[in-house]
């Protein structure tokens, strides 16, 4: 952040990426807006704990993913609909056809949450492995492994080779344990 940019301006600037991450992670357009709203409120409430010129984006992403996994654990108890993503997909993209967009989102939602967030942070958001590992509270090697597995699984899903039906592979999503 520069001296001329307020904390609010910085938050507004981050919203598009936060929405993209939240939507891709949750597969739900409405939920993603709720997650972003909650993230913004938490960030504002605790803005004094953020040091200017440090990595605001990573800080916000960490809050968002922890908020999502809190929600995910609750919703797991209510059994998430397997086709949540497709039903709640937002407006079809200009770059991909509607079908491609839905296929991609559906395939993404069949990854475990840990693998999905790893792939999103590295491949879509462009985080370094080190920063992504910090956001997720895991080791760099674990992050690399997750991305590699996620790519393989996604390729299987997209080519119709996967015979594993349930999203998440029964894995429990992790939460950064040291605060953010």
């Amino acid at each position, binding site marked *: 952040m520069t001296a001329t940019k*307020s904390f609010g301006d910085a938050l507004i600037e981050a919203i598009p990426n936060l929405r993209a991450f939240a939507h*891709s992670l949750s597969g739900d357009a409405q939920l993603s807006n*709720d997650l972003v709203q909650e993230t913004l409120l938490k960030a504002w409430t605790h803005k004094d704990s953020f040091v200017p010129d440090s990595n605001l984006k990573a*800080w916000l992403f960490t809050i968002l993913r922890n908020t999502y996994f809190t929600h995910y654990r609750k919703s797991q108890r209510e059994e998430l609909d397997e086709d949540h993503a497709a039903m709640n997909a937002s407006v079809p993209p200009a770059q991909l056809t509607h079908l491609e967009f839905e296929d*991609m*989102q559906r395939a993404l939602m069949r990854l475990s949450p840990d693998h999905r967030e790893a792939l999103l942070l590295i491949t879509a958001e462009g985080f370094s492995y080190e920063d992504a590992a910090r956001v997720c509270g895991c080791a760099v090697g674990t992050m690399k492994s997750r991305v*590699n*597995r996620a790519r*393989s699984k996604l390729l299987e899903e997209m080519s119709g080779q996967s015979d594993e039906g349930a999203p998440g592979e029964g894995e429990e999503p992790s939460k950064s344990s040291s605060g*953010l």
Partner: protein
Amino acid sequence: MQHRLDTPEDCKRTDGELPEPERQPESEAAKPPVAQLPGFAAQLIGQRMRAMYDTIAQEPVPEDLLELIRQLEAKERSK
């Protein structure tokens, strides 16, 4: 949309730095290694992922999110 104003552990760091990784790989370490995908396959997945992601990122920001920030700023100014 609900406004939750609780104080989670999510934001309590005081230095603004990223948290140190504490959780060690558990299930990942137990799994057999996965072979690296060919470059073109990883590239294809990357292109598709970014296309989907960028599409969402380029959507107009909902007015209520912008309004939320404005309200928070206005509330702070009025203090």
